[in-house]
């Protein structure tokens, strides 16, 4: 084919763009078969493909597009109506064109498949006229498309005329920057075309794939656009724009991006060096340098930016196909298509997005029947939403389906061994919801054809985390689910928090930072708890694992800094590692800064605690901490792994109670008790002043209800409470749908239930047995029995659980 290769390349790119639009138009047409604008648009795109394919001598492609065009012509003339079977054939036609394009891209030829069956489906009447009917003017009399007829013909007859846009010899470089900023606007038009088919959408569809090719055919060939152009996905632009866009190799953009990164660092350096200067000349110059660098950085980043709408073009078709497959009715709403993000991010997000959309339709949205029964409209809503927030891009996949059943998730997570039951006690609903991102987790009752094919939410999460992003989920039972993806605008320059430890600077990607805390020494001391050799920090009633950066990195082992008593004022950063939060203690928090991510050398890749490095304003190197790696090193996830490994045995075990874990508490003088954590929800600090009385019971207000307190010491014939501080430790036990607080003096540890328990036969004591735990004699308490003996609630709700446990 020789020099035609360039044309073929352009043809491939443009046809792919056209197909996206075609697909969306077809979805819309299916909804509303009377929509003449849609029909016209589909018709024109097919016509363009046919014309170009004819010119480039791809006969199969030309023939099948012609069959499709012919069919559409008959629909438009009212000869036939668009039946589901026909629209299916048209969708198959799109797939066939894609297949052919792929084959052309790969081998330069169309391959052997001539799609006879498809052509037959598209209309048997038309087989004889295939070859000569390249541009039948008779088909083009419809009013809607008449204004575009000139361009149509120019392409399909082999007489190529130069279109108007090609006439203004474009000063391409000058207009390039402008076009970058305009690109978002154009693409918005494309997308609105999916919802309403006013003239705007119409324009953008018709001329885009067509005139640029014509124009290019008449001009001397350009350098081969090897790499896909920066705007290709999104640019289905109006007629004038073809002249103000050029295709640039991504490689070149990447190089420019690197250089700008260097410039940013140099600028930072200069700013720091000159910060003490008085000379107005120097100050002005650096100010100017600062400004230009920022603008340049912005501009270069923008060249790599693409509106997310390009990626979403495929969504209407996918929604249609998947909802058919699942026999559901789904209306797709798309918001914020103009939101721009880095090209590489868009590429990386495509698969996770597809998965989430499939998931939402398959698992989220209910069948029309059950929606009606629940008083919802039969048609489910699936909203894709993108917007910028705080220098990041937020993408939401929002459905109004059944939502997540928290109990089911809790059960499932424990059953699969992803979380232990004591963890489920301290996990908030939010944290629990995030557990569906764990590998192998599925609440689907059955694996369907659409989702559940092994690519789980964990893969989605991994993919997004690889992009430096986060994914979280919020769900309300019966009302729907919102999956929220947060990604940085770009991967090369990210906002990060700069901290110090032992004089070294470290940076933490902002995306992992939840909040910063600066408790004074008193607050700190009162909120730090020690559980064996681990520390936790109490934040608004929740316990966060607390780790010290120096300890973690083994740069120092200051024994004293973590002590409850001796802590100096401290800086804490609450970090998000996957679905877990933990508090990281550092010497100082310097502030947030835009950093340029530099790769680490090969020799350092394996440490697993740094994602890269960056250069600070003073020219020194700072390591970028991998928050997931930190969490892993701190031992945050070890239990998950153990649980997965240990799962088969523990699941088989018939006496589940034995493998359960015990909360070890101290009551009175040196008396240890163990409570199975199974029915405990959490451990609370209750101020003595908050204790109120109802009849003769001690109660506290808890989560909007009244929670009776049981003084364990009363039942153990041991009145000597040794905790004389202002607050009590209350172990919250759940009995049926009520909470009971068990007052203990100290919470010591959580351990496995020991095997050698000497059972106690006394049914009137809350002590069910005694065992040696950590070299100490420990009484086992059955909280249900305790509640029963205390006579607090009706025994019916409690009794069931109690008998089950014994």
């Amino acid at each position: 084919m020789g020099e035609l290769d360039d044309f073929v390349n352009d043809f491939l790119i443009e046809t792919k763009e056209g197909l996206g639009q075609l697909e969306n138009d077809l979805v819309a047409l299916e909804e509303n078969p009377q929509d003449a604008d849609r029909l016209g648009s589909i018709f024109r795109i097919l016509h363009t493909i046919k014309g170009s394919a004819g010119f480039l001598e791809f006969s199969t492609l030309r023939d099948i597009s012609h069959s499709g065009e012919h069919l559409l012509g008959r629909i438009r003339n009212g000869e036939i109506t668009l039946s589901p079977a026909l629209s299916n054939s048209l969708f198959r036609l799109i797939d066939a064109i894609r297949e052919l394009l792929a084959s052309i891209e790969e081998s330069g030829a169309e391959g052997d498949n001539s799609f006879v069956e498809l052509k037959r489906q598209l209309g048997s009447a038309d087989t004889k006229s295939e070859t000569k009917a390249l541009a039948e003017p008779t088909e083009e009399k419809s009013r809607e498309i008449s204004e575009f007829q000139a361009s149509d013909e120019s392409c399909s007859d082999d007489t190529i005329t130069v279109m108007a846009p090609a006439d203004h010899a474009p000063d391409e470089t000058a207009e390039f920057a402008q076009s970058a900023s305009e690109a978002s606007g154009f693409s918005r038009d494309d997308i609105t075309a999916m919802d309403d088919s006013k003239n705007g959408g119409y324009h953008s569809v018709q001329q885009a794939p067509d005139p640029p090719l014509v124009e290019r055919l008449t001009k001397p060939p350009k350098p081969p656009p090897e790499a896909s152009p920066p705007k290709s996905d999104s640019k289905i632009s109006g007629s004038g724009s073809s002249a103000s866009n050029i295709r640039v190799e991504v490689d070149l953009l990447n190089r420019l991006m690197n250089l700008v990164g260097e410039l940013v660092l140099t600028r930072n350096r200069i700013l720091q060096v000159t910060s003490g200067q008085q000379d107005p000349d120097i100050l002005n110059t650096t100010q100017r340098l600062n400004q230009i660098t920022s603008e340049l950085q912005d501009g270069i980043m923008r060249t790599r930016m693409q509106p997310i709408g390009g990626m979403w073009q495929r969504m209407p078709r996918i929604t249609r196909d998947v909802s058919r497959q699942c026999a559901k009715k789904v209306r797709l709403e798309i918001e914020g298509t103009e939101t721009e993000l880095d090209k590489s991010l868009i590429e990386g997000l495509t698969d996770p997005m597809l998965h989430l959309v499939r998931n939402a339709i398959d698992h989220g949205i209910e069948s029309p029947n059950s929606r009606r029964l629940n008083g919802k409209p039969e048609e489910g809503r699936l909203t894709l939403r993108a917007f910028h927030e705080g220098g990041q891009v937020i993408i939401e996949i929002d459905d109004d389906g059944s939502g997540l059943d928290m109990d089911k998730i809790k059960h499932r997570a424990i059953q699969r061994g992803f979380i232990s039951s004591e963890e489920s006690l301290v996990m908030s609903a939010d944290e629990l919801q995030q557990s569906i991102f764990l590998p192998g987790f599925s609440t689907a009752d059955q694996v369907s054809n659409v989702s559940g094919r092994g690519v789980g939410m964990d893969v989605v999460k991994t993919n997004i985390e690889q992009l430096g992003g986060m994914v979280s989920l919020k769900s309300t039972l019966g009302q729907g689910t919102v999956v929220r993806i947060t990604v940085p605008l770009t991967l090369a320059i990210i906002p990060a928090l700069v901290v110090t430890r032992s004089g070294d600077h470290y940076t933490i990607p902002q995306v992992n930072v939840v909040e910063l805390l600066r408790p004074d020494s008193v607050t700190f001391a009162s909120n730090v708890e020690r559980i064996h050799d681990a520390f936790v920090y109490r934040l608004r009633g929740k316990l966060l694992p607390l780790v010290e950066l120096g300890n973690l990195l083994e740069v120092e082992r200051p024994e004293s800094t973590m002590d409850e008593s001796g802590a100096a004022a401290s800086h804490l950063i609450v970090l998000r590692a996957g679905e877990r939060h933990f508090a990281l203690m550092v010497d100082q928090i310097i502030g947030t800064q835009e950093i340029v991510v530099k790769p680490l050398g090969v020799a350092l890749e394996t440490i697993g605690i740094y994602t890269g490095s960056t250069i600070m304003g003073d020219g020194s190197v700072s390591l970028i901490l991998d928050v997931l790696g930190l969490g892993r090193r701190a031992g945050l996830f070890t239990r998950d792994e153990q649980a997965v490994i240990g799962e088969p045995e523990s699941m088989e075990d018939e006496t589940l109670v034995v493998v359960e874990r015990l909360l070890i508490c101290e009551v009175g003088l040196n008396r240890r008790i163990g409570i199975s954590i199974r029915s405990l929800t959490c451990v609370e600090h209750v101020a003595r002043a908050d204790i109120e009385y109802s009849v003769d019971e001690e109660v506290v207000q808890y989560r909007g209800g009244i929670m009776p307190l049981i003084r364990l010491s009363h039942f153990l014939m041991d009145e000597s409470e040794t905790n004389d501080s202002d607050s009590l430790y209350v172990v919250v036990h759940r009995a049926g749908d009520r909470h009971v607080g068990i007052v203990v003096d100290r919470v010591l540890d959580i351990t496995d239930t020991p095997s050698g328990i000497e059972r106690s036969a006394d049914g009137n004591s809350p002590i069910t047995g005694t065992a040696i735990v950590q070299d100490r004699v420990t009484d086992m308490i059955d909280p249900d029995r305790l509640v029963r003996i205390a006579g607090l609630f009706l025994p019916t709700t409690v009794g069931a659980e109690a008998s089950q446990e014994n």
Partner: protein
Amino acid sequence: MSPSENRQFCSFLLDGMLFGVDVGDVQEGLRDQRITRVPLASSMIHGLINLRGQIVTVVDLRQCLDLPKYIGDRPPANIIVRTRDEPMSFLADEIGDVLSVSESDFEPAPETLRGVAVDLIRGTYKLDDGLIRVLDTQQIADYVVAKAGQGQT
């Protein structure tokens, strides 16, 4: 290489011994670089430096060669060398001159050479007043990378 041919080595001192790397491998020598330490990295990795915007890993040659820790007054010098994957910095006590030696003065490393040095020292060249031990740049880079996976040594 014919025996009469001359070879050039960038010489440097480690623990009072003269070492050298092929001049062709050396990009530049630098002093007084701010080195950022990398906690949890292997002890052979001394840290990172910023070489005009590029992050370069600094290799502690004394650690590689099982020599005692450096305790001099002057901070050690960085010899930036090119390796297959990326430039690295070799830490030396003192950078010396570029020495020209004749290939005929080459002696392979003695068989009694102990430990890791066997792989890292290519051989020696006899000088008028001693020996220069020639290190294999790529071997050292490979060795450091291979050992990095094993955590702290």
